[in-house]
């Protein structure tokens, strides 16, 4: 009799990766049907992740929106439990407060993982905007606080912060907000760019959640965006 049948295993849980989508739903997103691209993109993200057995078990998604007010539009959930919201454009762009909320959410999520004994990958904050912050500007204490949080978080590898600029975003302002090692991407104006971006986001999380890399994965973003020089 093989006594290995008696062996019990401790923890059938999968390691998790937390993804906070930080989405601009200010009024200007109504132009050029950008909000439609965004809403459809969220559906693509869910479906794409669901199609991957590992990623569907490992990725946790939350949505923070900033359009007039900052809202936790969708708290963290599994991919299966993710109910892609339909965003409605309204108000201005309180990006600073939204970034702070995303960073706090990440820290809370890590605490929850640690309490459960769940191991995890480096979380992502993925911001999409077509404007510039209306609740902070360079030189103000709010600006300093928010940009410092992003820099410190990146330097200490607490999270990966990604920013995507959609026309007519203030790219220069975004460049000052994004970490120096990861400049903002500019979404192409071509048809299909929104879908391609969300497919890329999904594919990046499939790669992250399926491998042991030693360092962060460098993911090819061909097809939807560029880094302006």
């Amino acid at each position, binding site marked *: 009799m*093989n*006594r*290995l049948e*008696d*062996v*019990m*295993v*401790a*923890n*059938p*849980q999968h*390691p998790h990766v937390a993804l906070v989508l930080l989405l601009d739903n200010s009024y200007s997103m109504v132009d050029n049907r950008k909000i439609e691209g965004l809403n459809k993109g969220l559906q693509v993200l869910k479906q794409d992740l669901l199609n991957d057995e*590992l990623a569907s078990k490992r990725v946790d998604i939350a949505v923070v929106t900033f359009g007039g007010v900052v809202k936790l539009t969708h708290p963290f959930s599994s991919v299966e439990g993710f109910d892609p919201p339909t965003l409605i454009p309204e108000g201005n762009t309180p990006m600073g407060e939204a970034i702070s909320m995303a960073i706090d959410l990440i820290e809370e999520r890590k605490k929850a993982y*640690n*309490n459960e*004994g769940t*191991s*995890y*990958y*480096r979380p992502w904050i993925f911001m999409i905007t077509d404007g510039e912050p209306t609740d902070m500007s360079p030189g103000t204490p709010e600006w300093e606080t928010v940009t410092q949080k992003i820099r410190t978080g990146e330097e200490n*590898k607490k999270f990966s912060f990604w920013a995507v600029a959609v026309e007519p975003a203030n790219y220069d302002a975004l460049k000052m907000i994004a970490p120096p090692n990861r400049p903002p991407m500019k979404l192409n104006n071509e048809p299909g760019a929104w879908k391609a971006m969300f497919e890329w986001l999904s594919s990046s999380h499939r790669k*992250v959640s*399926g*491998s*042991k*890399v*030693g*360092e962060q*994965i460098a993911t090819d973003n061909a097809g939807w965006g560029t880094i302006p020089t």
Partner: protein
Amino acid sequence: MPVGEQYQLRKELDVTSTQLISMSTPYVICAAVTGPSHIKRGLPCQDAFAHRFIGNNIVAIAVADGLGSMPLADVGAKLAVDSSLEFLAQALQTDPVSLESELMTTVFTNCILSVRTRLQEESIALECPVNHLATTLLITVIQNDQARVAHVGDGAVVAETDNGLLILSTPAPSEYVNVVTPITSDTWQEDFSISECLSCVNALAVFTDGCQPACLPKVQGEYQVFEGFFKPIFAFAKDVTDLTIAEEDLDSFLSSAKMTATSDDDKTLVLAVVRK
């Protein structure tokens, strides 16, 4: 590693299963399986392991886990394992040292340095950056009923002693599950550890991180030995009468749905039983 290659390895060492069991030195049972995620991505098993008898009372076990993101990780892991055992065999045969002596820390450190040099030479020969060969390395030396470990990266060693189960070497600290410092890194020393010399050892388990979730859960940030795993594993190892069958059983166990549910990574588990 396929069972066939393990046979080949033993053949090279000119030691048969039957001989191992009848010898007074510890005996070693090894198995490694390719993780489902590697199979899916068309990657080979990037773990490597080997052991070597040195003199008549020492066994050195080396286990390495090549980093999945690196194109030649399996080559790096195999080379790290082979070159570390080569170094130890030479160092301990020509100049025997007690495991608990301070001198042993020098032997371990020099061993890691020699492996790094060997990996660098190989990267030059292969015309690739040395990090393409990135791997962890876990070296365990057993002398009589004592054991000591030198370790860079993740994986762990758990011992069954007269005083119960304990972790002899823990995975190097890392917040994220997919981040590890390989032996090829310039900062390897930050994640390099040499364990205490443990006495009264009855059996040891040396394993890569693919086995960790099943047997070494983290409870509030601290690794805990999971008795439900280790007690039957060590009981199995102590009861072995035929190494070939035991390794086939261990191989099947590592490939089982139960183990696969805990991790999709490659899994290597080496069990050593000290005969007293």
